[in-house]
């Protein structure tokens, strides 16, 4: 039906097609430029690192070098680590991270929503949440081990208490930023509390929530890794702690590199989510 209009009043559809192809070409060109720029920065950074390290201008004992790091990861990948194959370590950490990310996100949103909507609740619980947020997670990890044991739950808990707060504070503020007029309108149109949340408050707070998810995946990773420093048999945190214990800087960097790349991939996922859920923000360029 929409094609019809075009053929009646718009320029001929052939032109439309060519225009669309042009738009696509431009988008591709932009993409290529960005990628090459990122690559250039990457090459310069790692190149100078490698150079400084190879020439002992910086001490490889402390700083390792990109080449060694990649080689180390390669060795891990091919020969496996002391704790088993590399993919298993990755998978263990990833699983913990994803779980704590999801749980932390869900709880963060629920609490943020509840406290943002209900002033009484925010008065009562607010101070406690803020207080807990100031407690070093490293101190909490032993307590989690006491409560949840050495397995995955304690690592998830440790990631959760990092993720939760970031999502919570943003969700809370996002809920409070909702346009009063829109809330009023929905109420008049007959929205119940749940419907209000679904149709107005959550969509409106979504930018806030999604923004917090960008930083919180990184924090979920950190939480899982810190949890693995104490009481773990597998995982990237275990590998890093082990390398640290053996004065193996290259191993530490290798572990961190894997973590970083994971975070990057997850962030890309969050961005996709963002594009999908707040599509309406992107229509006007």
């Amino acid at each position, binding site marked *: 039906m929409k094609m019809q209009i075009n053929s009646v009043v718009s320029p001929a559809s052939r032109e439309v097609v060519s225009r669309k192809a042009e738009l696509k070409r431009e988008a591709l060109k932009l993409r290529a430029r960005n990628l090459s720029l990122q690559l250039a920065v990457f090459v310069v950074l790692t190149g100078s690192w490698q150079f400084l390290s190879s020439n002992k201008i910086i001490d490889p004992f402390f700083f390792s070098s990109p080449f060694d790091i990649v080689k180390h990861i390669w060795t891990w990948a091919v020969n496996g680590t002391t704790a088993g194959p590399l993919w298993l370590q990755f998978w263990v950490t990833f699983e913990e991270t994803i779980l704590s990310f999801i749980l932390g996100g869900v709880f963060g949103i629920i609490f943020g929503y509840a406290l943002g909507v209900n002033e009484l609740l925010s008065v009562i619980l607010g101070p406690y949440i803020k207080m807990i947020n100031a407690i070093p997670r490293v101190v909490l990890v032993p307590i989690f081990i006491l409560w949840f044991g050495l397995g995955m739950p304690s690592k998830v808990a440790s990631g959760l208490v990092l993720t939760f707060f970031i999502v919570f504070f943003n969700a809370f503020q996002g809920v409070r930023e909702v346009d*009063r007029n829109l809330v*009023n309108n*929905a109420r*008049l149109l*007959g929205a119940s509390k749940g*419907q209000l949340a679904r149709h107005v408050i959550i*969509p*409106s707070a979504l930018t806030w929530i999604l923004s917090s998810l960008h930083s919180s995946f990184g924090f979920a990773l950190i939480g899982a890794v810190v949890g693995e420093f104490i009481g773990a048999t597998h995982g990237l945190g275990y590998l890093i702690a082990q390398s640290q214990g053996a004065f193996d800087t290259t191993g530490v960097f290798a572990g961190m590199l894997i973590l970083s790349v994971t975070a990057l991939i997850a962030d890309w996922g969050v961005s996709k989510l963002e594009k999908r859920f707040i599509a309406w923000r992107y229509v*006007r360029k």
Partner: protein
Amino acid sequence: MSALETVYQANTQTEPAMIELKGISKEFVKPSGDVHSVLQGINLQIPKGEFVSIVGPTGCGKSTTLSLIAGFEPPTQGKVYISGQKLEGTNQRAACVFQTENAFPWKTVMDNVSLGLRLRGKNKAEANDEARKWIARVGLKDFEGHYPSQLSGGMRKRVALAQCLIVQPEILLMDEPFSALDVHTRHLMEDELLRIWEETSASVFFITHDLEEAIALSDRVIVLTAGPGARVKGDYRIDLPRPRNVAEISFDPAFMRIHQQIWQDLRDEVIISYENANKFSS
């Protein structure tokens, strides 16, 4: 204040008025900390099925009155009754076209318009079918999939209109719904509104700054005085026959007479308003 004032007496002693404002005052705290009185001692009854327009100088308190009836804010003094019951919280029997746009930016035109039905539990297909009708009525058939940000100002206003009318409320609150439309579209919309109103016999509270529009549409026109502390200055019954053709009614001599009469009142207030604002120089 005005010698021409004609006070309209509601003849509906049998059942309570749909909307009743009793001794309403509304004050705001100004940035300086002083109290700014917007409305003062407003008494108003709107029976079921009546179409009431409210006019007055800009900034006198029309939108404020509307928000009191909608229950967005409580009055500082006095009470609002809906069908004889004291209003607490949002008015569940009303729907509203806001002065500023109020379509949900994250919903398409279709979803915006069908929202009211969906909230009332209609299933998606039915709600969409119904919404499609209303979208056509406001002339946006081709824009169902657009987001509000992709529409022109006048189109967004019409989305708001459809969104509000589709739920067929008992009380219709409209704050300058047609001010962003060209004359022709406006007439079409006005006719549409009258038709719907006649079908549903809702009570309409209609804010406009266009006196002709007010007279052409209404059973009653209420004039507010200039703020601060606005009161009801005049309350005029418009006895023009219905159904009316809004595009042509303004050439009717009866219309002109009423217009002339109300305009006197209104103009005085507008002038007072403008003078008031600039009287107290620092």
